């Protein structure tokens, strides 16, 4: 080192758990254990489904059904995962989906056909995200409050547009995408959209500077700022991203339900948050996992599917859903703390 004095070596550089290389492996293993425990839960559910309803559950059509039903909320959850990872929250996702889906299905919009519906849904989603982002990043509003305000206004606006009426979609090219004939190699188009959004989301979060900045802002916003990251701009982008996902999801929901209604996206915010948290994204920010979120969504959708196939009623469904959330989080905490 220097020739002036012989500075002592720091002997305290050891990691509490083990030596250097094993610690690294331990970190990887822990990330894997978290995912594995989710896969375990999913496998257990598949086992339950397969035992209770072998014919109906273990069926290609049922797989298509589960994935399709999970794809709309799945896309919303990918956006939500980014927001939560950054230490924020977006309570307005369900309302944005509702507003985008009704705006995109008004008589006037439908005159522009497929492109008109798609474009409107996405633009409305992004615009709502922009408002959220500006309020939070530059208006210094708490995300909880800003997005709660957006929830109320977007739902209100959706109601005003529809007057409570169901807007039926009459564009064949839109409706056809939800039919079996549109499946490619047995894969429904909505599921493909979900897969693409998931992969892009994973890459952005894990492989890009945008993802790193998201994690940094969520882990320690002050440190991120002092490290030279434009925290406010990052926050703006994140809520824009969530809005974009809502716009895409709204379009998917229009395809799926063949209509636009102001009640669309009911309680999406809670479902998306629950799926992300079960997946292993920290509600306090700083750690996010797209894989986990998607597994969380699939777990919820599979539960709903198994319940419906076994003809269990909503009261049982709700109780079991709550119990499974608690169980999944407990299992994860245990596996995370013992490795």
């Amino acid at each position, binding site marked *: 080192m220097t020739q002036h004095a012989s500075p002592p070596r720091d002997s305290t550089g050891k990691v509490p758990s083990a030596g250097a290389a094993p610690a690294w492996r331990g970190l990887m293993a822990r990330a894997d254990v978290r995912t594995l425990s989710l896969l375990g839960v999913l496998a257990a559910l598949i086992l339950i489904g397969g035992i209770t309803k072998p014919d109906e559950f273990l069926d290609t059509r049922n797989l298509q059904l589960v994935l399709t039903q999970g794809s709309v909320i799945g896309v919303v959850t990918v956006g939500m995962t980014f927001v939560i990872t950054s230490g924020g929250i977006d309570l307005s996702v369900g309302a944005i989906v509702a507003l985008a889906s009704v705006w995109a299905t008004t008589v006037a919009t439908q005159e522009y056909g497929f492109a008109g519906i798609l474009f409107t849904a996405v633009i409305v989603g992004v615009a709502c995200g922009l408002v959220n982002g500006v309020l939070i990043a530059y208006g210094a509003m708490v995300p909880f409050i800003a997005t709660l305000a957006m929830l109320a206004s977007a739902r209100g606006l959706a109601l005003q547009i529809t007057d409570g009426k169901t807007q039926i979609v009459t564009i064949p090219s839109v409706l056809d995408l939800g039919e079996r004939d549109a499946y490619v190699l047995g894969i429904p188009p909505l599921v493909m959209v979900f897969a693409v959004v998931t992969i892009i989301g994973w890459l952005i979060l894990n492989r890009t500077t945008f993802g790193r900045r998201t994690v940094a802002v969520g882990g*320690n916003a002050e440190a991120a700022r002092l490290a030279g990251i434009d925290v406010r701009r990052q926050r703006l982008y994140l809520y824009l991203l969530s809005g974009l996902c809502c716009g895409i999801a709204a379009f998917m929901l229009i395809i799926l339900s063949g209509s636009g209604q102001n009640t669309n996206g009911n309680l999406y915010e809670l479902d998306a948050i629950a799926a992300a948290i079960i997946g292993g994204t920290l509600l306090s920010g700083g750690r996010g996992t797209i894989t986990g979120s998607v597994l969380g969504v699939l777990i919820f959708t599979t539960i709903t599917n198994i319940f419906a196939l076994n003809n269990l009623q909503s009261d049982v469904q709700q109780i079991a859903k709550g119990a499974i959330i608690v169980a999944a989080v407990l299992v994860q905490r245990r596996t995370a703390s013992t490795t």
Partner: protein
Amino acid sequence: MAPVPPLLSMNGITKSFPGVRALDGVDLDVQAGEVHCLLGQNGAGKSTLIKVLAGAHQPDTGTIRWRGEGVTLRSPIAAMRLGIATIYQELDLVEHLSVAENVHLGHEPTAAGFVVRGKVARASTTQLLKRLGHPEIDPARLVGDLSAAQQQIVSMARALSHDVRLIVMDEPSAALDPDEVDNLFRIVGDLTSAGVAVVYISHRLEEIRRIGDRVTVLKDGRAVAGGLPAKTTPTRDVVAMMTGRNVEYVFPERPPKDATGGEPLLEVRGLARHGEFEPLDLTVRPGEIVGLAGLVGSGRSEILETIYGARKPSAGQVLVDGRPLKPGSVRAAVRAGLGLAPEERKAQALLMLESVTRNVSVSSMSRFSRGGWIDRAAELGAARAATRELSLRPDNPSVPVRTLSGGNQQKAVLARWLLRGCRVLLLDEPTRGVDVGARAELYAVVRRLADEGLAVLLVSSEVPEVLGLADRVLVLREGRVVHTAPARELDEHRVLDLVMEGSPAS
């Protein structure tokens, strides 16, 4: 066997956490009325030991005797009932409650069993604060509005509001200025003369010399020495026991240089922030380390953060290479080549959940990315190179940064700026929470970076550190520079006189 059993006697305490044995058969005897110092590097087991003592952790094996009787400290409440109070380093006060409410939290004076008698609580709090030498703290104020030092007094008042027999203080002087440390020592003296035992934890050997009676040294979860006389055991021996080495602070030599060489790299002109510090001029040349010495509250950290753009100045400007920086913009400062190692490393610099690599690369991500796409191999390689250059241990940048010692965490922050190619380094309390043994190495790193052409601006509350490391020293008092001189022309006494008196010399 002493005729009177010790107040506290812990024998063969072991405590393991998943993957780590924090305590490995530790013995500790504390007599009533003594100041018993606990020494040890970070990770030596001090925190675990005092948590066992406070009832926050249950030992795996070992016995605890209190006045000769075997006891089990099942919970913090059980410890408190015996008369054991703990003042943690991270103060556990409720910011949104008043001083009096905090002091009496959990044992509020009540009427009819549940109506809190606020007046009684405030009166007894006033008494306690007076006893602690801080009658100026208003019991009705919110704790969140107090300074760190005042909060510590409140924390102490809370401990004393119980019938306390033994009080544990975990690095109580860390956030205090010399005069406040004096007050602390006076309080400790009062306590011990009243027969209360004090377990005192500190990094600062000179403090232990001043107030300690006996010393127990911990290393790697074991007590390597117990009950040594605090005043007479040679420093060399204590350091050797803590580190396995026999050195104290070693400052690197200053390279010989002519005083006027080179254009200033960092120039601060009339920079001021209303209410924090007055217009300030300073220059730092490449290869130069300039130190700011002053008490807590003298505006040291505020000056650094304002130069860095983290706070908006009310007047003046900052120039790098003669070009003015956009005021109040961290990003502009970073782009111009400034880097800050802030005072609160964990809160202001580090992403604690992330690996060393990501902590190091966070300010230079564009360097390993194309179109936002990160080349992780290049990132890891660069982080490895930067951390190796600073001898960061362990030599594996993939470990989580939170598993590192304080000194190595600081090196991770320095590596961040090294990787960024930063030319002006702002260091705020660079050795806070860093072990004695690791400090010298950090000093050498800073000096070497300066030798390589960086301009370094250093802030420290430890005067010897500023004097030993800096080339030039600015002495601050209440937001104003009262003296500027080459470091070799100053000594600790002179600086302390200046920060106290503020008599403008020369």
